[in-house]
């Protein structure tokens, strides 16, 4: 027993790669017992290395070949004693395996089954094969970003992590409903739609003004100055966003340009936007003298929204992430102490989330097959021999 929110919830995790495992990582850290089910026959493509460590912390891991008849029977037994089952195979795979919602809910009537795919499980393009990076283009998500008049940006890693969190959210919603009504759910989740839902401004602008989004780099349709400014060092920048006149006045003080204040051209946001090139040059004359963190410190002291533009390893080294406990040390099985990410929230007064290192395939076979499902050691040995537990 713990005091964590999902204490007592058991999740059968058939998902792999990024989105599904990200969802179950949230659940595991919040107290659910997540049993990752995989097989050496078809290993999770991200089985090794840092990415697997990141996406699979705090989970149990049992080996099972669910495409064998006995394997299918065992996973159904596992579903019968679980609350949630989640999968993100290509559309149709889970049905062919014999694990449709019909089959899962026959094993456990109030099961919550979460199925995520590129374009959803119904519709003329449901069978489209997808990678997250390509869906970002398909859904218009990338179309609103970029420098002016340039080709579409390749886009960073967005689709899978975003969907991972949203899958955890819909699962929590379904758990609440089950607690209230006793009923389970099948959840048909479309990654593509999740991305399109993330650009409401562009969708409404098109209807209101028959206009496609104008890409504007770091600039903003409303605020100015608004951009990144070169600091000391190669590829070092500080992001500055002035959102009102008071911040504008503060900025002029920090960059020691009080002469800009009385200039009527810069008196309001519209004027500052119109003359942004000139202002950007003035700001850069100051930022170029400072390290990006030092520039940030001085700007923040004066109340100007700002921060360094960081690469991944500099993000990793941010003291903020350690002081709030987001990054903490875990000893991994290679014997090293590693600083690994946690959860982006704190439940104050509650129990700390659970973080253990990512599991290896089969490490929890005994718990799952003997303790949970009541198989004998001899039966397990036979199933291992016959490559069912495999």
């Amino acid at each position, binding site marked *: 027993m713990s005091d964590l929110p999902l204490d007592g919830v058991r999740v059968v995790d058939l998902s792999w790669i990024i989105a599904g495992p990200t969802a179950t990582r949230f659940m595991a850290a919040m107290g659910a017992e997540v049993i990752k089910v995989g097989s050496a026959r078809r290993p999770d493509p991200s089985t090794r290395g840092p990415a697997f460590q990141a996406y699979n912390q705090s989970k149990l891991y049992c080996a099972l070949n669910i495409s064998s008849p006995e394997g299918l029977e065992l996973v159904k037994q596992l579903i019968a004693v679980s609350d949630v089952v989640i999968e993100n195979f290509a559309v149709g795979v889970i049905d062919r395996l014999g694990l449709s919602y019909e089959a899962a809910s026959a094993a456990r009537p109030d099961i919550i089954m979460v199925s995520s795919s590129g*374009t959803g499980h119904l519709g003329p393009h449901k069978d489209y094969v997808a990678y997250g990076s390509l869906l970002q283009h398909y859904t218009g998500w990338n179309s609103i970003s970029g420098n002016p008049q340039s080709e579409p940006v390749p886009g960073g890693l967005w689709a899978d992590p975003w969907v991972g969190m949203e899958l955890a959210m819909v699962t929590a919603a379904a758990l609440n409903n089950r607690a209230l009504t006793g009923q389970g759910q099948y959840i048909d989740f479309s990654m593509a739609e999740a991305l399109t839902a993330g650009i409401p401004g562009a969708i409404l602008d098109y209807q209101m003004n028959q206009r496609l989004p104008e890409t504007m780099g770091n600039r903003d349709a409303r605020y100015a100055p608004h951009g990144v400014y070169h600091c000391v060092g190669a590829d070092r920048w500080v992001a500055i966003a002035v959102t009102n006149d008071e911040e504008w006045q503060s900025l002029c003080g920090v960059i020691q340009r009080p002469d800009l204040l009385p200039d009527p051209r810069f008196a309001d946001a519209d004027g500052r936007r119109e003359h942004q090139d000139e202002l950007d040059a003035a700001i850069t004359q100051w930022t170029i003298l400072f390290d990006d963190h030092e520039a940030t410190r001085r700007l923040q002291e004066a109340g100007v929204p700002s921060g360094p533009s960081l690469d991944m390893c500099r993000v990793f080294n941010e003291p903020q992430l350690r002081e709030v406990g987001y990054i903490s040390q875990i000893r991994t099985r290679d014997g090293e102490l590693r600083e690994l990410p946690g959860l982006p929230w704190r439940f104050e007064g509650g129990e700390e989330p659970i973080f253990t290192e990512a599991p290896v395939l089969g490490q929890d076979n005994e718990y799952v097959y003997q303790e949970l499902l009541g198989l004998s050691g001899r039966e397990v040995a036979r199933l291992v021999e016959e490559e069912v537990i495999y």
Partner: protein
Amino acid sequence: MVAGLLPGVRVLDVGQGISAPYCAKILAQMGAEVIKVEPPDGDEARRMGPFPGDSPHPERSGLFLAMNSNKYGVSLDLASPDGAEAFKRLAAGADIVVENPPPGSLETHGLGYETLKTINPGLIFTSVTPFGNRGPYKDFKATDLVLYHMSGHAHGLLGAVEDPDSNPPIRAGGHQAELVGGMAAATATLMALYRKRMTGKGCRIDISSFEAMVNQLISGLASCAYGRPAPPRDAIEVEEAAAAGMVSAIGGILPCNDGYVAISPREDVQWERWLGIMDNPAWAADDRYSTRDARQKNSPSLWKLLSEWSSNHSKHEIARWGQEQRIPCFPVNTVLDLFNDEQLAHREFFVEIEHPAAGALKYPGAPYKFSNTELPLAARPAPLLGEHNESILGKLE
């Protein structure tokens, strides 16, 4: 009346702008009864646009309308004794309060969690702020631009550039950091609500949008934890990394005669079929492109060859050919393409809602369908400022 998943759950949305209102919007579309509490001059999002004809109007801001559909709305001056009292009465009957103030501002009106939990011990109180309420940055001011850059995302968005010092990292459009903060808040809040159902306990949840953004890149963080360098931006360094086998998959966009298509025929079997679509060009036999490794290492020159071919075809045509061969491949869609997309149409993704001031508009719906429960996605338009003062606040007296 569609009940949704959360019948009887009452939420007070004290948020402004995007992050907290987005959290409350999710709760509303899941079926909670959400009351938006705005200051007398309205939520900041009413001034954010986009507006029809670019003409600002507090009841016609696209972002406000999108973030606040399916909520009720009241206006309250929390600085006045009457307003604070009304808010306390609302909070006494609520399950959840969501806010995104500058740190401590509900506090200054004597309406922080410590006060509210004395009148409602089971309350879940969710605060979304740029950096949370702890750590050296807790009082820093940040916007979507700042959070997108500080969290490492901007360095990955543009891909390789010739000269990083004249081609800075850029942010994504559309307030993505604020949306991530809101989604993290909804996720944590729904988990806390489940705990409340099981144990009766409330709690305070502190959400840092910065951490929520950083958390989108946990694989990158883990790479750093294993001593690996950050992915480079400089085109030459990117090529060197590719040559050293550090690029895991080829993929990207190709120019077409009507836009672009996004492809990634990374596996050998996919590549074979892709060559078939291109009528097996002679260059494919070249050693530089004959294996997956070689293609990754030589992806810049490979991309030029692919582009020469793709420029003669349309994006929808190439995407269809690719998908017919089971190769992940999609047109690079504009917003207009989305309205014409037959998959989105079949799934009824866009939801039309009639609003008294803004008219009928199509909003993005929910990317999920629950087999046993219909969601109230078009229950009501975003509230006019103070629209439900009488029906909700009136009842308190």
